[in-house]
């Protein structure tokens, strides 16, 4: 198997476990931990040679992070 593929799967598993069992049980910690499986998934997708999929995934991950941060700020301000 490819080394990139194996490394991506390992980081994906670490990230999923860290998001599921987050230690300071806050939204911010969960959001930061959510970045780990995104990078693992990026490495797994790197094993299949599709540049457009990689670009789309990176862009959509950044935009969704922006939206979630805005949502968290709005929620904290409202309560």
């Amino acid at each position, binding site marked *: 198997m490819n080394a990139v593929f194996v490394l991506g799967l390992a980081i994906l598993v670490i990230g999923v476990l860290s998001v599921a069992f987050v230690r300071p049980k806050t939204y911010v910690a969960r959001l930061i931990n959510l*970045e780990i499986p995104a990078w693992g998934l990026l490495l797994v997708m790197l094993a299949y040679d599709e540049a457009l999929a990689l670009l789309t995934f*990176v862009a959509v991950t950044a935009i969704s992070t922006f939206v979630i941060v805005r949502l968290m700020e709005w929620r904290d301000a409202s309560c």
Partner: protein
Amino acid sequence: MIVALEVAFGLVALLGAVSTALVRDSYGKVISLGILVAGIVPFIVDRGYLDVAIAVSLIAPIATIFILMVVRREQA
């Protein structure tokens, strides 16, 4: 890639992931995320996807800046 470099960058990426998962401070988590990115970008460059490397290098700090906004708001 050279095997030694591959092992070194893979180790950097794995240690970044583990430390991001285990560190409890939010700022520490963001800094560990930078280590994770630093370990992963050389693999993207090694495959020859320089456009993807450019996009990742530009977009990843922007996401970090947005996370820092909400972390500062929470700790203030």
